[in-house]
């Protein structure tokens, strides 16, 4: 089934693993959860030898254990979960994994945008059916959240703070009373949430000011703050894990040399340090330099090498992809990258040589092309 999809949702992709975990799970399960909280944690964070399992469960989300525990516990309680953090910190991925593990359905998603309306959260009507048969449950189109309520599973709300305040506030009654009334209908006009229903929302901490949550809504969510990964080892793990997944998806067989991965991580670390010490927006790259961004650069380089290169990932290609991905504004971003290349990469290539020299050349060419 995964072959038919460009990107399979977590519950499809890890269906075997979830089935197996469900079969061995003897812990107490809250509501209609498919796995017990400990098993959910194990699914997300992977197994260790000490767990004594017959089969290894891979780690899917990298970060502090306590974040995952707090998230799971929140979902087992009466409140919704709001994952908040910088772009690219893995909030949505964690939300997807949690939904997949708890309710085997991570696709009941509402995407928050400036154009999101209350209908997207509650329900809307199939106009032609209403004209033909009048308003009834059959002519009603339930939103993903309402579907989640009816089924007693987890509903997701991406980028909550991007939607306007009045739309956000539609969630208040859903999270408090746990039902949605449909005043247009005379009977059967209340949809009650089944046990197991909860909401995982994500919010970008950089966007918080756009439409900040009302106090009433804040009270109904537990906040779990996901920090940017700064630990180089964890970051390497994440990049490797996600890239392997992408390669599988594209059916590409190509090795990522460890020293090129190091160069990528080092470059991002350097650029992050530079951004942290910048005093104005013009002195830092527009990109948030998140881990997701790194994965994007690597993916781009791999695809480029595969389709236009000799099926080997080279430092020049990586440099080209890095410049191409990060140079969004001209001339500001290009100037910063130019400064970085001549101030940091050049001395490093003289000192360490090897792939850094090729990286230097590739970067120079890319900057020259874009300038």
């Amino acid at each position, binding site marked *: 089934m995964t072959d038919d999809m460009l990107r399979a949702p977590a519950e499809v992709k890890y269906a075997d693993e979830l089935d197996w975990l469900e079969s061995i799970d003897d812990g107490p399960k809250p509501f209609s959860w498919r796995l017990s*909280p400990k098993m959910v944690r194990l699914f997300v964070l992977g197994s260790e030898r*000490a767990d004594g399992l017959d089969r290894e469960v891979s780690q899917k989300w990298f970060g502090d254990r*306590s974040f995952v*525990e*707090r998230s799971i*516990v929140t979902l087992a*309680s009466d409140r919704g979960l709001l994952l908040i953090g910088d772009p690219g910190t893995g909030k949505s991925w964690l939300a997807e994994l949690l939904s997949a593990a708890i309710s085997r359905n991570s696709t009941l998603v509402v995407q928050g945008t400036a154009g999101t309306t209350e209908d997207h959260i509650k329900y809307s009507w199939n106009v032609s059916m209403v004209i033909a048969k009048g308003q009834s449950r059959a002519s009603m189109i339930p939103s993903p959240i309402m579907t989640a309520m009816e089924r007693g599973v987890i509903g997701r709300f991406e980028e909550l703070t991007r939607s306007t305040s009045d739309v956000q506030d539609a969630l208040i009654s859903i999270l408090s009373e746990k039902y949605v009334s449909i005043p247009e209908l005379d009977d059967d006009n209340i949809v009650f949430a089944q046990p197991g229903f909860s909401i995982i929302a994500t919010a970008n901490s950089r966007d918080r000011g756009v439409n900040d949550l009302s106090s009433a809504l*804040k*009270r109904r969510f537990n*906040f779990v703050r996901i920090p940017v990964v700064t630990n180089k080892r964890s970051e390497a793990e994440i990049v490797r894990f996600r890239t392997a997944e992408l390669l599988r998806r594209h059916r590409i067989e190509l090795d990522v040399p460890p020293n090129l991965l190091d160069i990528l991580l080092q470059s991002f670390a350097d650029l992050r340090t530079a951004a942290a010490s910048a005093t104005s927006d013009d002195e830092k790259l527009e990109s948030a330099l998140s881990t997701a961004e790194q994965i994007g650069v690597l993916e781009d380089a791999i695809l480029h090498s595969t389709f236009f290169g000799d099926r080997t990932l080279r430092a020049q290609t990586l440099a080209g992809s890095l410049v191409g991905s990060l140079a969004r504004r001209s001339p500001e971003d290009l100037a910063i990258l130019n400064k970085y290349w001549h101030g940091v990469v050049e001395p490093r290539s003289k000192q360490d040589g090897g792939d850094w020299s090729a990286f230097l050349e590739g970067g120079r060419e890319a900057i020259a092309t874009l300038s």
Partner: protein
Amino acid sequence: MSEPFGALRQQLVEAATAFAASPGAVPDILAGIVDDVDRALREELEIFPVCHHSPASALAMVRRLREKQPKVIYLELCEDLTPLLTELRNCRLPVALQAFASELDTFPKDWGPLSVIAPITEASAEYQAIAYALDTPGVELVLVDRSTDHVFQWQPRTPATPAHADSPDSDSSDEDDAGELHGDAVGIEIGDLRPRFAELETHLLHHGKVRHWSEWWDQYVEQPLVDADYATYRQVMVLIGSLFRRLAPSGAERVTVDEDRERYMWTRMREHLATSGVDRSDCLYVCGAFHAASRVEQFGTGPDAAPFDITPRTATKWLYGLIPSSHSAIEGQFGLASGSVSIAAATWAKAVSRSKLATFQLEGQRGSRKRAARPAAGAVEAGPVADQLTQFLASPPDLHGFDEEELLGWCVDIVRLARRNGYLASTADAIAVFETSILLAGMRNRARPTPYDFQDAAVTCIEKDVIPGRRDVRRLCEILLGGDRVGQVGYDALPPLARDVYDRLTPIGLDLRKSTVQRALLDLNGRPELTPCSHLLWMLRYLLPDGAVRPIMGSRRLGERSIQESWDLSIGKHQRYIIELGYEGVTVEQVVERRLRRSVYAPDATAAVALRAVEDSILFLGSRRFTDELGARAVELLAAERTVDDAPDVLRRIRRLLAHYRATEPELPAWCGSFVTAGYAHYCTLLPTAFVDDETGVRQVGAMLGFLFTMEGLALSLGCDRAQLELAVRQSHPESPAKVALLWAAHHQLGLLPLADLRARCADLLGNPLVVPTFPQYLSGFVQALEPVPKLAAFVVEVMSDAFAHLPDPVLLPWLPTLITTLRDQAGELVPVLIREAGRTFPATLPAVDAWVPPWTATTGTPTQGPGSPGIAGPRPGGAAGGPGGPAGGLVGGGGGSAGWAGRGAAGGPGDGSGPGSARWDAAMPVLRLLAEHPSTCDDVAGLVGIPGDGGDGPGWLDLDLLNTPATPGRSTVQALLESHPGAMDALEALLIAG
């Protein structure tokens, strides 16, 4: 070595052989651990292993002391701290025993001052042992660890500072005053028990599914052991000590020091046993679990133990005292998780009330509630050693049931606390925290939520935003679970200086032991008995860091006296600093004297520093001898200086000091004279260089000129030569515009450049389009010249007005900020002069503005006034420009006045209204009378210029009748002189005609 641990050993070795990848290592370690336990328990001298800040250790200690009632207790603590222990009864815990040395012997100088602290908390085994030993008659407490001197003797002599040797990185980054209480002292602890290499700790934390070490210890050792019996407790602690010891990197510096300490302790104990003859079964040896599993050859009290040579102490002079400590300071110093010591204290209190144990407490100690000690039971001997470990390791810990009431209390309290701290928390949050805590504990395999689970739950449910400056929920939880307790050292345990401070501040009538900030109001007129208190407070203000004593109203400067003062006192909170002052001297005055002396003899001392010390000495000590000594040092420092960076500071301070001495003393101290003459020579020498040196700012050169001109009168009277100054000015050839302007001002002051010329030069500058952009810099120079040449004030106003009138906006506007910042820097000195001058120059009313003509244009535009127009601003009497009463007060009057007189003499001439009867003439009368009464000088001068003397009662060239007759228009002494010597005028006329 078979029993009693044979079975366990066998079991462990078999398990190791079955699971270990490589043969040998693991079985050896596991068997070795069992051997260590066996060995420690077999020792005849009973070893009591402890861990720091462990309530389980403290409880086991109480139980054991009640049972055994030992006669001698050996304690792992620096032996030279013994005299301090009795002082603990005067303190509120936690406090730290401190050894301090500033006079070092054999230790590297850059290590000093050396400071060692050993914090003592109530929930610790060592405190229970100390309290038992000190308050039970017939019990001796012997500290056996190496002395504080040896702590540093055994430090590696690497460039690293010793202070960091024992303080691993703390993860309590948000603790603001963690290091505050302990300073940079080296911390020593009884029972340091923690894995010695990072990988082991990481491994334990990872598999224990906990975040930090304190949590691991609490969950896996502390809780299971809280109610364990003594045998189990002892065996488990030695087992853990042995495990960490065997898994420590061998040969590491730290292990070597630890082994030396163990040799030291066993040697001391054997010595004590031999001299006192006490029975070993009556003794108890309290040491860290790490040391209980020792394998050094000196281990044991048997006769065959190897000897160990204890090196003698160095001649370093150690001073001892108690300083207040706090839970957060201990956590910060020893790298414990934030809040862990507070949580340990809460666990201890709870365990004591649950077990109804009668704990020990020193007689007379404040701070915690007394418990009636039960009559001690008869001494119980330890039974034969039986294996308790197998049972302990094989079965899950027997934990106390879930205390719902306690958790509910926490949840309600945290919500209340959060609300008080600005969070939007409600009862619903309390319910959520409760539920989340239980769920989290369940997820983490805990039968009941620990404080750490509760903390996580509270953060999850309550914290929605991060607002800088607001306490985060984690910190609130720590406060809730016991909070940071700060100890206090009682009066009787204080050093003499600190006691003296408390005594002398008694008249204020405040309880200075309180840790809050208290406001003291001193009405020095109404209650003169408070004057000594005020004096002391000013000294403390000088000695202590900011915040300890802070004046709200009132000041102490030379020439000022406050009628009322108001102070914010926070002496209780800053007790440590007062105690540490006690290491420097017996009284506050002595410490001030030492500090002042140290400051002027420091390698980086400058003349400005020394002058400041002189001022402070006058303000605080009032000792003429000491002040003179500091003053003499200031002269030395000034003469040795090669830069003029401090010139503005030096000028300001010496002026203030001279004014003070002139007002209060009949004559100047000798050092003042030396300072002025040395300064005159020094600044004259450096002036030409300073004018051209790019690194020397205009302000510095201005201050040098200020010194030279304003001190000139005094310097010349003390034997300096004016030619030196004139030469120095002639040698100066500055290039930067601001300094050029300064030099012109100097020339003007010396009479080398008349004002008209100066004005003409400025007009040229403004008229030359190539120079106009730099004109603002000239103006800056003139503004700076106000200090050395105050009579230029009117001219500066004129130039500035001209600049505003004529400079193009593109030049003027960018320059305005520079002008403002320049003026702001010296607002106190320069701006009042300028404003006053401007106030006199410009009309005060709006209608007058229309009719107003700038005085300088009126002056320059009216040739009838002649070249000798008095002063600068026309309408005013000329004397005001250079007369006494400039901004520098009396001193300026001395130098500026004389120079002004000379200038006026040169500028004055026929028709300037300065003849007899005019104001100037009146002012000159006393001088003329003086000359008339003592004519010899004038006669000699007259002889030199060729006027014949009459040999009678007055000089021939001076017509004494003139003094008594009314003004005769057109006739003056100068005129008379010119008439009698027409040659000069003839030559001048010829020259002019020729030109």
